[in-house]
């Protein structure tokens, strides 16, 4: 009798060169860990999401309803896909869809989709707007954040002690460093247009940025932390090359945050190491980062660990990370037959070719 392979659905296949989503990297990690021993269903929002055409990582792919269209349509679409694919595990990878996915967790479980996500309260507590409150509770240093409904603040902020440069941020995504009121107002409108209001402003911290990816087990423990420093960035400030680092002090910062939140699921902690060597909390992303393939590179394949945890299996022992391991991205053209693009456009699903 043929045994059914474990099927894992991964969102965020928008592996765009200047600002890649994490889904393709997550799928690559899973393929590295399990080879042909699992089926991977790639989920995207646009027929031009590059990861949807890479058959070596995705056995089949589907388009979803945009998060903007609401939770009901998203659930309806996932239910249709589930009827065909019999998915065991869903790994959401995008900031904009995560609030919906978290809210749908029980309904997803009801149609047989296992997830390993935080609850709504945990999710909200790490939001950008509430970050100072969380950092305070966890005993972590952080730059002050303000929530803005209009850009007037930037004209007079110098008078109330908010001196330039400042960082203007979207509530879900995006951050721009601005040096004067004109740049700040432009950044406000650009971010509000893409990510809606409110817009956040954060005090600028000079120093070097470090990122840590890991998984919270939901009982206050951080598992498998992997640290990285960007060595080259795209025009949008995303890592184009990076190097694995290992600092117990940064790991402790992340442990405190995970313990305070009782976080369940993947996360990325973004910090600035200021000139005094103090880590200041900049952001917590409630998902794997796009550079997560480095976790496989350092021997700590975090998407594979997530799969084990989601299936209720014991977490495998993690080897010591290997600082000094680097990654460098490259742009690559995938040849796509028009018929495949047409199928995805018209039917919202297709079976991509193995490009390997």
């Amino acid at each position, binding site marked *: 009798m043929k045994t059914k392979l474990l099927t894992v659905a991964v969102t965020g296949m928008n592996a765009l060169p200047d600002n890649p989503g994490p889904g393709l990297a997550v799928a690559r990690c899973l393929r590295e860990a399990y080879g042909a021993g699992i089926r991977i269903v790639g989920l995207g929002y646009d027929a031009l999401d590059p990861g949807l055409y890479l058959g070596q990582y995705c056995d089949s792919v589907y388009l979803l309803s945009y998060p903007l269209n609401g939770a009901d349509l998203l659930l309806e679409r996932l239910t249709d896909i589930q009827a065909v694919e019999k998915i065991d595990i869903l790994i959401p990878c995008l900031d904009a869809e995560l609030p919906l996915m978290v809210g749908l967790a029980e309904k997803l479980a009801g149609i047989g989709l296992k997830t390993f996500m935080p609850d709504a309260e945990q999710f909200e507590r790490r939001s950008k707007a509430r970050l100072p409150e969380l950092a305070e509770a966890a005993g972590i240093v952080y730059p002050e954040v303000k929530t803005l409904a209009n850009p007037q603040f930037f004209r007079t902020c110098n008078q109330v002690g908010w001196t330039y440069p400042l960082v203007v941020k979207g509530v879900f995504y995006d951050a721009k460093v601005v040096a004067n009121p004109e740049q700040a107002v432009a950044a406000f409108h650009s971010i509000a247009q893409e990510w809606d209001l409110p817009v956040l402003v954060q005090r600028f911290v000079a120093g*070097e940025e*470090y990122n840590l990816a890991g998984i919270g087990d939901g009982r206050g423990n951080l598992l498998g932390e992997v640290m*990285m*420093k960007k*060595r080259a960035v795209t025009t949008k400030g995303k890592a184009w090359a*990076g*190097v*694995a*680092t*290992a*600092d117990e002090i940064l790991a402790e910062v992340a442990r405190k945050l995970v313990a305070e939140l009782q976080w369940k699921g993947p996360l990325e902690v973004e910090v600035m*190491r200021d000139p005094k060597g103090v880590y200041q909390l900049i952001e917590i992303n409630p998902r794997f980062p796009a550079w997560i393939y480095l976790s496989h590179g350092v021997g700590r394949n975090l998407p594979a660990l997530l799969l084990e945890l989601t299936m209720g299996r014991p977490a495998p022992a993690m080897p010591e990370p290997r*600082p*000094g391991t680097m990654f460098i991205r490259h742009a690559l053209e995938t040849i796509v037959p028009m018929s495949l693009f047409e199928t995805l456009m018209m039917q919202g699903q297709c079976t991509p070719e193995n490009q390997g």
Partner: protein
Amino acid sequence: MAGQTLDFPNVETLRRLALSESGFIFDPVTGNSFTVNHTGQAVLQLIQQTLDIEEIIQKLQAVFEIDTLVAERDVIEFAGQLRGCFL
């Protein structure tokens, strides 16, 4: 200079550095990398063992067959460069 120490960066910082034979140096905590010439490499290897300036100079003289003043100058200069990198 017997028993004297120079103003080097934190010794724990220097000891965690990974040195390769090519002169490539990697700091696993910060992710920064540097290159040094043969003299710098030798000085850094010695500093990772001791901060005693006299001992460092004696060992440098033995390796590179240079006089005390030259060795002392090289070590002081290198200590300054290290401070620039790690402070």
